[in-house]
């Protein structure tokens, strides 16, 4: 069996972090790299978890299709509300807001989001680069990020590009709140729960010293990239020397992933090799 790809390594790492009976929310992100990190890897990870230790996990695809039959698809849909998804068999379709679940009662255990900048406190930006009134670059807007980072019980920030422009000391605009001032800081802002759990990039996984409110390196996917990481990251990496490798999937795990979860390469097969 060929060695695990980076998307496969990330998929298994994510899958093991989900607990049985949890509800996982993923949007339908478009654009090759963004879709891989924002939608396909999360879907593969949740499916893997359901087949192993978390059979009662609920997948909320695009936030409305409950446990869809992805095996019946010829390609991942690229529009959230077109007829491909309308006709995709699933256990429940949410056609109304509010519908089968309540965002604000914490029914979503974990979500996946992305952004254009992420900073050392874990705050996320998808609104502007530069000044808000006269931005250098106007981006799409906050979308569901404020909710992802507060009323979802934890958040996986999925960044398809690991560069110093994305991973910055301070974001230009906070559309999703991390841990400014640590957990105490969040509590003072009126958000005692939620927040980013991991930040996943093609290079590594970050987590947080939540008390201190500071991002830290959790693991590195490829040992040979350890020396390059500081150069592509816009903040200091004090844990660089000590960070372990992201665990390599076992042969059994890779077999299940390739043969059962994603037999046609719909999710991870289009993965550009890093």
């Amino acid at each position, binding site marked *: 069996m060929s060695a695990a790809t980076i998307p496969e390594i990330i998929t298994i790492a994510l899958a093991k972090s989900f607990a049985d009976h949890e509800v996982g929310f993923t949007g339908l992100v478009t654009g090759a790299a963004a879709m891989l990190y924002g939608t396909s890897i999360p879907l593969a990870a949740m499916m893997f978890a359901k087949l192993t230790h978390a059979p009662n996990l609920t997948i909320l695809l695009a936030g409305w299709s409950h446990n869809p039959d992805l095996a019946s698809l010829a390609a991942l849909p690229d529009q959230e509300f077109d*007829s491909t998804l309308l006709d995709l068999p699933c256990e429940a379709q949410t056609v109304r807001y509010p519908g089968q679940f309540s965002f*604000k009662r914490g029914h979503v255990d974990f979500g996946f989001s992305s952004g254009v900048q992420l900073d050392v406190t874990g*705050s996320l930006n998808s609104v502007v680069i530069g000044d808000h009134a006269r931005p250098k*670059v106007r981006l*799409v807007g906050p979308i*569901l990020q404020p909710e992802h980072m507060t009323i979802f019980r934890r958040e996986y920030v999925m960044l398809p590009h690991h560069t110093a422009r994305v991973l910055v000391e301070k974001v230009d605009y906070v559309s999703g709140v991390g841990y400014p001032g640590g957990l105490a800081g969040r509590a003072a802002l009126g958000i005692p729960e939620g927040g980013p759990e991991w930040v996943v990039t093609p290079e590594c996984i970050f987590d947080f010293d939540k008390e201190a409110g500071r991002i830290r390196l959790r693991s590195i996917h490829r040992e040979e990239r350890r020396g390059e990481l500081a150069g592509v990251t816009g903040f200091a990496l004090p844990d660089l020397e000590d960070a372990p490798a992201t665990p390599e999937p076992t042969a059994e795990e890779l077999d299940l992933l390739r043969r059962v979860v994603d037999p046609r390469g719909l999710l991870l097969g289009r993965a550009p090799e890093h």
Partner: protein
Amino acid sequence: MASASFLPPRRTIPFPDRKVVTMAEAASLVPDGARVAIGGFANYQRPMAFVRELVRQRRRDLTVVGTVSGIEVDMLAGAGALKKVETSYVGLEKYGLARNIRRRNEAGTVEIVDYPEVLSFDRFRASRENLTFWPSAYLGGTDILTHNPDIKAFDCPLTGRKLYAVPPADPEVVVIHAGAADEAGNVLWPSRRLMPQELDLDTAQSAEMVIVTVEKIVSNQFVRRNPTLNMLPAYRTAAIVEAPCGAHPTPTLGRFVIDDAHMQAYVAASASDEAFDAYLDEWVRGTADHAAYLEKLGAAHVMRLQEIATI
């Protein structure tokens, strides 16, 4: 500020004296500077024929209040019709950034007021329930607060919890695109529907001036055979316009798919003010009305966009 009445006035803008009107008549119900909500979601089922008519009539200084915005707001921005949009997103999804509004926002000529997505829905629920604000617990720490003086912090009078009062959507005029309506103004929702169609209902119920463009005007008997689909009875609508394929190039669920080729042409034209002006000259100002627009698209092209939802 204390108000003498607590119910919104039924009619702030005079209704036409008959329900079924031309697109030009319907668009003239939206004055310059109006606060408008436009039905649909992202790039699904937008009343684009109506938006094009606003552009033909050279409407100015509109404020659009939305949830997840797309081509409808980008076209108004590119035509110089838009002053401000209040929304959680402006973009073209898989077609990329909305380049007209981006350019104008960066130049400082169009203002974007950012709201979180769920709260952008709640703002319409607030209007629907005639509430003066919607309470939110989770805005602390965001720059949404930094740049929006209309959102005010307060302490919950019952628990003391720190909350934020978010203003309701309160559009003056709502325009949506639906499948069918009768001449009296009863509007039928499709039996199988998704979030965009359901959200249209919240949008439609957030104002008194409700304009509906429809794929087809049907008989009152047809409405009576499907009374549970009549989600917007005649007393809730001000004007009905028949506009087949009226959401083009966005899809209408069960009727038309998205026009991928046209979306790509739109995106290409959005690269500069000059190119977009040429697009508007060709497709909007250069067509006298929606019938002429469909004529220009061509019957063969439009027929290929048809979707068969049921057989």
